[in-house]
């Protein structure tokens, strides 16, 4: 009898403590700090609640992919350049976060955005013939952002169905998530779920949102606590003007170019000597003329990009494109025919023109020496040019 009473008491205490934890989590996740948007972190990228609750009134979405993880400790990275300026961004991007990921994200974040604007950094390497591999898509897929997307009443059923179909197909390697998504689709997209399925869906949704909270909070508290605290109280010496606080891009550009040139050494691709020796040189022999048959002419990514534009239109977000270059010297070495590479810029430009999207074309910088840290990612010099473009579009 004593044990039964103890069990019942423990259960009541557990319910109380879990509820207190949930309520305190909800309060803490809204950090009321615009600098949080500049934090480059995978958990943030995947957390709908973290993004939605921290979108400030002047904040634009700054979307891209792996480039955000390059040079993020340098003063030329957008997270540093825009840290003390009036422009505010929610930076979201990691390797393989491409058009479909961003379409879902915009669909989920739009109701919480006050400044309805999304700047998309488009990399040519997104447009490979096979598109994003299912494994890569699964790695970056966010359950809570998808839930936000399918529950957004601004998005038409037709568009939801298109995205739902694609997502289920692409999660072929992640069966557990695919089953969950199938259930969400039945409830929120196709409206053909049974009452029991609706109940299970509700449980799943609450659980995933809870996990999302905790993942983000853990990332803030454990991984980046020092950096985050620094952002809350930025310390600048008296009289010191933070980089980017003025619009004198020219001075910063010269500084960045000097740094990128010094780091490049004497490799034939004008990239960081360290990365060249570590990553490129060991594979050079194997990579010579390895891309003779490659082409960016046909890729499912073009349809995904159109889908992204469609979602933006339906939720009232203004998309803006920046076309990034890739290291022309390296791609020449791999034998990737230039005309079959350049087609990507033309096709993206057509999508932008057809939809009246502001488009800044940096593609020709592919042959700008020292623009790249490696074969595709920007160096200090590259980042300053990209920052200028972002500044123009904001």
């Amino acid at each position, binding site marked *: 009898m*004593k*044990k039964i*009473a*103890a*069990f019942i*008491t*423990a*259960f009541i*205490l*557990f319910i109380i*403590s*879990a509820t207190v934890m949930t309520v305190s989590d909800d309060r803490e996740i809204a950090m009321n700090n615009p600098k949080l948007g500049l934090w480059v972190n995978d958990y943030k990228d*995947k957390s709908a609640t973290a993004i939605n609750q921290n979108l400030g009134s002047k904040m634009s979405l700054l979307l891209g992919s*792996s480039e955000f993880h390059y040079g993020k400790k340098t003063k030329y990275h957008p997270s540093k350049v825009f840290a003390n300026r009036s422009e505010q961004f929610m930076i979201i991007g990691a*390797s*393989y976060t491409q058009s479909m990921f961003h379409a879902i994200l915009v669909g989920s974040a739009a109701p919480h955005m006050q400044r309805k604007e999304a700047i998309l950094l488009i990399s040519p390497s997104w447009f490979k013939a096979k598109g994003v*591999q299912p*494994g*890569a898509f*699964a*790695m970056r897929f966010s359950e809570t952002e998808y839930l936000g997307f399918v529950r957004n009443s601004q998005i038409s059923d037709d568009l939801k169905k298109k995205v739902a179909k694609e997502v289920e197909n692409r999660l072929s*390697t*992640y069966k*557990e998530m695919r089953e969950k998504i199938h259930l969400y689709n039945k409830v929120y997209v196709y409206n053909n779920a049974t009452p029991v399925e609706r109940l299970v869906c509700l449980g799943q949704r609450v*659980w*995933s949102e*809870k*996990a999302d909270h*905790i*993942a983000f909070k*853990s990332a803030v508290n454990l991984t980046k606590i020092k950096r985050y605290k620094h952002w809350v109280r930025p310390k600048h010496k008296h009289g010191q003007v933070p980089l980017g606080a003025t619009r004198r891009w020219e001075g910063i550009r010269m500084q960045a170019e000097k740094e990128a040139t010094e780091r490049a050494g004497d490799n034939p691709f004008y990239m960081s000597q360290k990365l060249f020796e570590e*990553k*490129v040189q060991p*594979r050079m022999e194997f*990579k010579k003329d390895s891309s003779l048959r490659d082409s960016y002419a046909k890729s499912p990514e073009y349809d995904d990009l159109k889908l992204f534009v469609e979602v933006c239109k339906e939720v009232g977000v203004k998309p803006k494109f920046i076309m990034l270059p890739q290291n022309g010297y390296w791609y020449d070495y791999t034998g990737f025919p230039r005309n079959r590479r350049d087609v990507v810029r033309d096709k993206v430009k057509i999508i932008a023109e057809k939809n009246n999207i502001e488009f800044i074309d940096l593609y020709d910088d592919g042959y700008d020496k020292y623009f790249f840290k*490696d*074969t*595709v990612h920007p160096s200090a010099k590259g980042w300053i040019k990209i920052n200028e473009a972002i500044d123009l579009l904001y």
Partner: protein
Amino acid sequence: MKRLTSCIKRIGRYGKKLIRDKEFWAYTFVFWGLMFGIYLYLIYAGMAKAPEFTYAEF
């Protein structure tokens, strides 16, 4: 009605006895710890379960 009040009184008396019982609190703490541990495990296990993909840069 009388039965109900006497039952409530009996539960109350038993409750008062339990509050002072160290063994009862020890069991309560162990059960609560187990429940909360399982709860946290399920949340963090879900977090760590995201699939991985080798990043092919070149």
